[in-house]
């Protein structure tokens, strides 16, 4: 009988380790002036340096260093007063020089931490994830495997290489071993990567798109028998390219390891690949010999020694930490937890905030962006922000607040703006969506409504105020929704002696 997740947790304690690689969004590559633009024609963003041509030499991108320092500071790291690049030597066709310029024993940032909050059975608990290091390195090229089942490495007849991505600046963020997460290990891992992603985005240093590979996570897990005080052998799962997958991969790997241990089998220290479909991992191709990277200091580059004043300058520009900002906005806007989460998951927090900053009511702003606009965006498979600007949404909300539009009319304005009919004002003009605020026109409609529903009118005269709703509805219908409902109600009640 195979162990379930709960069985595994009952017997074993998990220890996590997470390595995140993030591509920076600098204009140029780490060591050359080639563009980093995503999606170019193959081999159009290469030069002697990033192709590793004989004789070429690397020169460090200054913005990449600044980004590394920003990341380190945001993760509470110390910034090394002296750090160096090293060569990691191994042969692989996607790596033009057959060594990767990376950092080894002298990384730029060390000893940080990141606190994440998890919903536990005992309420919200904070887990501290300690960061061992943040270091700079370069990305590899991309290979296309042709023949066999195309796209897969195994069974391919040959491979085609595009070096446009070779040399893109990469930051590797490595945690220390994370003990004590217990059954929440998968959630802690996910929360950590999520918080990290949010921080990186708020710093503006990366696009952090897991699906495009600009943020990649390798997850290490090991299990040790409860109370044994020993540390189990770990596996390293690669190819985890969504937040949900981070959680699933660790969950799956814990079950796999637990069952192996239960059957008296050894855990092999190895690299495994996450399989999206099944949520399981499969072993990577094992190497005949353990790799020996023969690290040594990169002789073509000189040390990076940021002075303290520069570091402080950068520290002063750091934005508010996303988790702090989230709490602040949640309080300021009085948003329920669930809606706040929805807004963050939809990546609309910045957009809503921008709309609110233009004077819109926070609840209205949230409702528009997450409601109607997101609905259309989903239909069209585009980003909500590509359909309307915060200024347009704020303008419409303010027109409703001042009574110039009703909610119903506002919906039509939004529809018109999205359809490309112009600015909100232009749509109102073209579609004739002005609220009917001429009292005499309204009175005519009110009298018509009373005439058609005399019994209802009588009930209102007798003091049954809620009954007025049916009459107001009739007036709104008669005016095509363009009447100001509040004004209609006011006039109607007055007319019926209330």
């Amino acid at each position, binding site marked *: 009988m195979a162990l379930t997740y709960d069985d595994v947790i009952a017997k074993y304690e998990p220890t996590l380790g997470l390595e995140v690689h993030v591509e920076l969004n600098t*204009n*140029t590559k780490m060591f*050359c*002036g*080639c*563009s980093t633009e995503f999606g170019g*024609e*193959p*081999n*159009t*963003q*290469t*030069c*002697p340096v990033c*192709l590793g*041509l004989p004789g070429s030499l690397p*020169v*460090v*991108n*200054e*913005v*990449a*260093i600044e980004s590394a320092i920003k990341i380190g500071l945001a993760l509470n790291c110390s910034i090394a007063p*002296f750090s160096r690049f090293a060569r990691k030597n*191994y*042969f*692989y*066709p996607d790596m033009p020089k057959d060594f*990767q310029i990376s950092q080894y024993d002298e990384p730029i940032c060390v000893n940080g931490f990141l606190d994440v909050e998890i919903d536990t059975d005992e309420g919200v608990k904070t887990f501290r994830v300690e960061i061992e290091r943040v270091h700079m390195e370069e990305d*590899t090229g991309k*290979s*296309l*495997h042709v*023949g066999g089942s195309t796209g897969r*490495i195994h069974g*391919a*007849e*040959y*491979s*085609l*290489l*595009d*070096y446009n991505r070779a040399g893109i600046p990469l930051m590797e963020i490595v945690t220390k071993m994370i003990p004590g997460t217990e059954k929440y290990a998968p959630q802690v891992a996910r929360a950590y990567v999520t918080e990290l992603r949010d921080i990186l985005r708020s710093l503006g240093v990366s696009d952090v798109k897991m699906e495009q590979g600009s943020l990649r996570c390798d997850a290490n897990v090991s299990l040790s028998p409860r109370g044994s005080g020993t540390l189990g052998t770990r596996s390293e799962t690669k190819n985890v390219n969504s937040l949900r997958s981070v959680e699933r991969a660790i969950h799956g790997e814990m079950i796999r390891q637990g069952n192996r241990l239960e059957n008296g089998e050894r855990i092999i220290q190895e*690299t495994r690949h996450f399989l999206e479909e099944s949520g399981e991992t499969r072993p*990577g*191709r094992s*190497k005949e*010999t353990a*790799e*020996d990277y*023969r690290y*040594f*200091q990169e*002789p073509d*580059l*000189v*040390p*990076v*020694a*940021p002075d303290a004043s520069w570091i402080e300058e950068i520290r002063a520009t750091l934005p508010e930490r996303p988790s702090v900002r989230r709490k602040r906005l949640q309080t300021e806007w009085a948003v329920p937890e669930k809606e706040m989460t929805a807004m963050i998951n939809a990546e609309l927090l910045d957009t809503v905030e921008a709309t609110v900053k233009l004077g819109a009511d926070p609840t209205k702003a949230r409702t528009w962006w997450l409601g109607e606009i997101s609905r259309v965006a989903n239909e069209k498979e585009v980003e909500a922000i590509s359909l309307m600007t915060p200024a347009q949404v704020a303008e419409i909300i303010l027109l409703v607040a001042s009574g110039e539009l009703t909610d119903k009319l506002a919906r039509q304005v939004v529809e018109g703006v999205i359809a490309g009919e112009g600015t909100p004002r232009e749509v109102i003009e073209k579609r004739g969506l002005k609220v009917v605020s001429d009292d005499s026109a309204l009175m005519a409609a009110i009298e018509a409504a009373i005439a058609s529903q005399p019994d209802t009118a009588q009930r209102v005269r007798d003091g049954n105020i809620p009954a007025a709703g049916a009459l107001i509805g009739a007036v709104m219908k008669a005016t095509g929704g363009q009447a100001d409902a509040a004004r209609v109600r006011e006039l109607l009640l007055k007319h019926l002696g209330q």
Partner: protein
Amino acid sequence: MAAISRDEVAHLARLARIEMSSEELDHLASELDQILHAVDRVQEAAKDDVPPTSHPLPLKNVTRPDVVIPSLSPEDALSGAPASDEQRFKVPQILGDAE
């Protein structure tokens, strides 16, 4: 005693991606042995209180502005390729996993 065995040389040749015949391995093992005996003396000179020097110049913080410079044309980039297809470098099948 030999400083380096034939098996070690074979392992190094694999690490360095150089195919070697068995005669080559034998020959190289004995040559390397001589060379290593000759260079071994660095250890007697180098005491721990002497810091290592990796670079003759005391330079630091040499960087480049983050400004795009025109890349090579794809024709130039691929001009030396032993084989190419679809504007990409064509290489034999890749068997092992990347790092």
